[in-house]
């Protein structure tokens, strides 16, 4: 079995061939923005998720205007093929992918294996030179919420999950799912309560990747998500984590690699859900 949409993944060899391709813009988004500044793929633009990929004031994704100004000023147009990559097996690269899809960017791809795969190959070039491209006018589409779940939809999915009318995938670590911890140690973004959304299935994000950070094969993924966890491609699905980046990764896997029909990323995730008053929570650890 092949990936449902193999075109959304590119290899390091593909990127190497397109380093100077004017139709391609390579963008790095890391959990830790220091990584980009120390070194990156030649010509890659660096985006900082903390500043560039969220609304600077309210807790939300960036507005259309914010995204247009950001990408236009960095020389990215809506016609470009955008290749995203980053640390932690592409967590925030996948978040960037999701965000660009919400705003209708046509051709977005992920570098399979992310920055660690590139770094592991000594012969591939790296630089710390920050590129400068002539500014463009980036035209985003109106925000399309097909792939975004808000808390209401998460609650709905939780209700419907009882009768198998929806499925919720919790991609956090087992200790976060069970309620042993609210967030991994040292994290500043946290919630008031520990546990998970009732009806959610626990499939940690890392289930989808090999040790070198590349995605597992379609057969392996099917084995894990479909046969192993009983998730169905036709059932409406909501993925969530703590702040929405690890679940973007799983959203990408379910939608593009396994071809699930209706998958949404709940970007409010546990920091929102676990802080709300009166919503039901399941917890295995007391």
């Amino acid at each position, binding site marked *: 079995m092949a990936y449902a949409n193999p075109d959304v993944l590119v290899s390091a060899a593909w990127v190497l061939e397109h380093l100077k391709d004017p139709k391609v813009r390579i963008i790095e988004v890391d959990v830790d923005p220091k990584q980009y500044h120390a070194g990156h793929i030649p010509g890659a633009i660096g985006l900082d998720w903390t500043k560039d990929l969220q609304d600077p004031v309210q807790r939300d994704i960036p507005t259309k205007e914010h995204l247009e100004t950001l990408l236009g000023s960095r020389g990215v147009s809506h016609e470009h093929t955008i290749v995203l990559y980053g640390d932690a097996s592409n967590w925030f690269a996948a978040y960037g992918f999701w965000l660009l899809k919400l705003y209708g960017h046509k051709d977005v791809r992920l570098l399979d294996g992310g920055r660690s795969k590139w*770094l592991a190959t000594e012969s591939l070039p790296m630089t710390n030179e920050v590129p400068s491209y002539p500014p463009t006018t980036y035209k985003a589409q109106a925000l399309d919420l097909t792939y975004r779940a808000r808390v209401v939809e998460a609650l709905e999915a939780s209700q419907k999950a009882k009768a198998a009318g929806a499925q919720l995938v919790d991609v956090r*670590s087992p200790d976060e799912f069970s309620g042993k911890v609210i967030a991994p140690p040292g994290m500043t973004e946290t919630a008031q309560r520990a546990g998970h959304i009732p009806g959610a299935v626990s499939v940690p994000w890392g289930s989808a990747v090999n040790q070198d950070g590349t995605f597992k094969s379609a057969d392996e993924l099917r084995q894990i998500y479909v046969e192993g966890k009983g998730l169905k491609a036709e059932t409406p699905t909501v993925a969530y984590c703590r702040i929405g980046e690890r679940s973007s990764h799983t959203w990408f896997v379910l939608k593009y690699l396994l071809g699930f029909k209706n998958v949404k990323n709940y970007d409010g995730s546990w920091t929102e859900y676990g802080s709300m008053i009166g919503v039901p929570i399941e917890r295995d650890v007391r």
Partner: protein
Amino acid sequence: MHSSPENRVRSDAGRPDLDARVFESVLDMLPSEANPTPLVRLQRLVPPGSTLYAKLEWMNPFGSVKDRAAWEMLRDLEERGQLGEAKPGRGVVEPTSGNTGLSLAALASMRGYGMRAVVPSKVPDEKKALLRLAGAEVDVTTDALCPLPGSEDGAIGLARTYARAQGDKYVMPNQYENQANARAHERTTGPEIWRQTAGRVTHVFTALGTVGTATGLARYLRKQNPDVKIIAVQPSPGHDVPGLRNVSELSVSKLFDPSLISEILEIPHELAYTRAAELFRREGLRAGPSSGLIFEGARRVAERDGVGLGVMIFCDDVFKYVSSMRKHLPELGKFNVEGE
């Protein structure tokens, strides 16, 4: 970075007077067969019929066994033209949160090179400050959230990135893969022990981290006497003993050669702390937690088999670990102003 030759402290500035312990440069204090770190015999905590000596690696100029590997790796880079006059302006970058960073920072600075240490955020601020105190630039990386098993952490990735993308400024010694690390112990630790015990050593007890110590000294000592037992002591899984690895974590080291190790003992990690405290109180040895663990391993083998003449590599002293010691031995941290 400042690697001009006139800025560089030489290691052969003058012949040290080892009897009077007068050195023309701190680099002359670095250990060698002629200038070994002390061996001290344990008096009270040894099972009857056995003899155990501690090799006090905290007597190295920068306080730990890591001075040896750091110095050998720097010299090796110089000899291969990767540092020094052949590469003006180049310094070193290493992912390290502990002793290696401190040794590298101090030695690099003596030799006129810059040093960048890349440290995971979970490392206590005291250690980060110590690295800066020794002259390093410090980058702190985010700890991995539910990391993939076996994946490289952020600190290793960032350090590699500096070396790859800014090769004019940085070379990465990489203690986990650099054969000079093991060679340091083959050249110094092994011969020192052989000389200090007049060839009577029967057992060496050491910990496993990068595995440079065990591999290097075993290579030397086995050549002198194939019957010398090299016993590695490791903490139980899930431990928090700084600098050590459980065998399940050893895949990160390319220096691990199981054929050189006679036996690997797994010790409950809590004993690292309680034994370290006993060593200080009963033997006057201010041993750090990894030394506590090594001592417990040696003590068990002495009880089980008897040990003719055992040497324990005590990696460093307890002064850097006061907060860890307080965590594991709560009685250390309770103070009552009004008196107990």
